[in-house]
């Protein structure tokens, strides 16, 4: 059960990472469709279309993470403490805070993508980049800790 949930958590996180990265790059792009590079074409997308998917995926990933968290505290954290891996413990503490901050910022993020007023263009771009940064951190740290010690006893 825990293993299946961990795999689903990881798969949903990959989808979230893809969606928010694509949206963040689109939010920062100048819409110049004449440019032919892969990167330029990758960025030419309607970022607003991603916000619902990002919110749903984030809540899903966060909920699965919250369910898995007690198992982490029982299985992984004591081992990190025994081995005196303080930095590994610290990066997870940051993952915890970043997850919570990102979760509560989702309503504002969603609302900025619904605002057509140009007043919100900067907020929309930077909030999306901030969320993308938090998602990347959480994903990489999740993979790192799973590599140090999986959740299964």
């Amino acid at each position: 059960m825990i293993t299946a949930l961990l795999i689903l958590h990881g798969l949903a996180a990959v989808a979230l990472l893809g969606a928010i990265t694509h949206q963040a790059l689109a939010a920062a792009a100048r819409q110049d469709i004449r440019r032919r590079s892969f990167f330029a074409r990758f960025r030419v997308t309607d970022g607003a279309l991603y916000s619902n998917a990002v919110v749903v995926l984030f809540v899903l990933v966060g909920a699965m993470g919250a369910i898995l968290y007690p198992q982490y505290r029982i299985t992984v954290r004591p081992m990190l403490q025994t081995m005196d891996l303080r930095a590994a413990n610290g990066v997870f503490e940051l993952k915890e805070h970043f997850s919570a901050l990102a979760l509560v910022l989702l309503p504002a993020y969603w609302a900025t993508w619904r605002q057509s007023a140009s007043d919100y263009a900067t907020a929309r771009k930077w909030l999306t980049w901030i969320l993308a940064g938090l998602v990347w951190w959480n994903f990489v740290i999740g993979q790192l800790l799973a590599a140090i010690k999986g959740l299964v006893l």
Partner: protein
Amino acid sequence: MSARLMVFSLAAAIAYTLAYYFDWPLFVYDLTGGELRFFATTASGPAILWYGWLMTAILAGLVATLIVPPRLIERFLPDLLWFVPAVLIVAALLYEKRWFL
């Protein structure tokens, strides 16, 4: 509606930071007994405070949406929406630097 969602997010994000800085979880999840202890900050064994901090934040956000008139801060909202989260991320990094020293 949009302004209220933004007020919720800002208030909840600030409240979350205050909650872990000052240990204000709404409850603690006791891993040994598998139960929630409301308005506690410790448990008999290992405990999870994160759920409680998050609930404190959500509660504060909901209260803020009820009592803060969006028109009062609407002018500043576009700037606050990226500035406040950026400051809170720096605050988290500073708070957790103890693990890396």
